[in-house]
């Protein structure tokens, strides 16, 4: 078949589904961002760019952006290396590998509701697991893990990383399995030690997967919602919101009903994400001979 005729056929199904179920709602929320809508009790009223003007002065929103950035950094700096390390460790012949792999993956299939309940017990100020463990060395220890505005989000981020490490580990295990054994044999013959093999064979061979996993982390942390919404109620809003939780609270929580304003915040989030993703994409495209997956840094 002629290529010029064929290309649209490859794209058409995706475009149809995507256009109908994703682009239309997005376009609608862009439109609503220009309205004042104390819904559900009233009709939307056009207000031009006023929502955006308000948003620029909204301290909570900008704090929320910073929190997203912190989550992003943390998932790249902690979650990814840990996932790689665990995958490498498990790649050695290991007794009970199935057990390890299943258990590591378990937090990922555990529904968020259960995770939130359990970790609230773990983080309970006095009788929580964490406080009790510390009390073994420092009797009488108590700490408001989820009520200290400076650190609450940090502890929740720890929970988030804990949850996702197993998933990323599975990705890396798959990639490790694809590295030809001969490379390592050749390295051993050349007298390379274990660390060197890791540095010069494993990591470079993992690079495409690192790209994928980093991209998933970046997007995931920009849109993150669940555990923060469920666990961060104990601190003032400027210390607890992520962009997505703030948008939800504006629109739905306790019928705050500022749907137009929430949509405007979503548009901002969208623009910010775009500003992060587009340069990354462009850069990886330029480097494409070097970075064949062209996915992410």
């Amino acid at each position, binding site marked *: 078949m002629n290529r010029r005729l064929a290309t649209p056929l*490859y794209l058409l199904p995706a475009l149809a589904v995507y256009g109908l179920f994703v682009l239309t709602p997005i376009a*609608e929320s862009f439109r609503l961002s220009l309205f004042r809508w104390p819904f559900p009790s009233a009709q939307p009223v056009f207000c031009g760019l006023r929502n955006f003007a308000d948003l620029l002065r909204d301290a909570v929103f900008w704090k929320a952006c910073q929190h997203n950035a912190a989550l992003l950094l943390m998932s790249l700096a902690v979650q990814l290396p840990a996932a790689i390390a665990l995958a490498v460790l498990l790649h050695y012949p290991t007794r009970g590998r199935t057990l390890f792999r299943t258990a590591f993956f378990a937090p990922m299939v*555990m529904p968020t509701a259960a995770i939130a309940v359990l970790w609230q017990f773990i983080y309970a100020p006095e009788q929580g697991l964490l406080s009790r463990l510390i009390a073994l060395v420092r009797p009488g220890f108590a700490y408001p893990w989820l009520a200290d505005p400076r650190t609450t989000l940090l502890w929740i981020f720890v929970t988030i990383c804990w949850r996702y490490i197993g998933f990323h580990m599975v990705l890396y295990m798959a990639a490790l399995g694809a590295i030809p054994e001969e490379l390592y044999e050749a390295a051993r013959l050349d007298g390379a030690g274990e660390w060197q093999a890791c540095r010069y064979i494993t990591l470079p061979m993992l690079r495409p997967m690192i790209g994928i996993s980093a991209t998933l982390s970046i997007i995931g942390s920009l849109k993150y919602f669940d555990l923060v919404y469920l666990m961060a109620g104990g601190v003032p809003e400027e210390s607890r919101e992520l962009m997505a939780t703030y948008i939800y609270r504006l*629109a739905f929580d306790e019928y705050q009903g500022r749907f137009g304003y929430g949509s405007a915040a979503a548009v901002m989030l969208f623009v910010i994400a775009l500003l992060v993703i587009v340069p990354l994409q462009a850069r990886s495209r330029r480097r494409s001979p070097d970075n064949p997956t062209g996915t992410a840094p």
Partner: protein
Amino acid sequence: MKRSLRYAVLLCFLVLTAYPLLWMALAAVRLEGDVQQNPFGIPTQVTLANLAAVLRSGIFGKAYLNSLLVCAAGVAAALACGAPAAFAFARLPFRGSQALFLTFLLGMMIPVHVTLIPLNRLLGSAGLGLKGTLWALIGPYAGFALPVTILILRGAFEAIPRDLLDAARMDGCGHWGTFRHVALPLARPAIATVVIFNFLSMWNEFAFALTLLDPRNPTLPIAIARFKGEHDIEIARTCAALCVVVLPLLAVYCAAQRHIIRGLTAGAVKE
């Protein structure tokens, strides 16, 4: 690296991840007051009442089936639409390719909650009229899974050595043949990644399911939420519900793991 050190690290992490599961399973057979008042203690009394209440509610069998159906259909639809598109982006250069690709990425950047009202209208009786049926979920699930699917698969298709594709072309394969018989099998690890990722996102998805489904015919996350009380969560019962939901899934994952991992690696290009 030292064997003992390696096992020590692995065991540490095992405790971190397996303990919650164990806790959940234990809480499921404890009395509510017991869990609330001594969450980390040894059960004083074992009861099957929570599990019985969950199974008796009768909704979980249906919800399980619904979740499996919707997730399978959503994953399949995302793959069926996304893979050819990713192939086009990777291997069939056309004008506006980069811009269109970015358009596809846009979907990843919108928080789902602001799309609920527009989607509700689109699928409601004034629009497609699918609301309340399982069909209503498949479209949005597939649509919102497309960006990640295309992003990952494009990378995988680009990583396939040019020679292999050219060789296929020489052997008389058209584009479609090259795509079906060469590119797709070679991209198996990426496809498996996409499938796992999409499946898990859909499996845990709450907002769309709440908006678009008939609550009497729900998916699992909605069914689980029913066990939250008026003012706070009923832990023992929720955990029992979660056990019913999670343990079979984990068991399947555990049993099928060898095949999954083999599937993940079998098609990889070995240069």
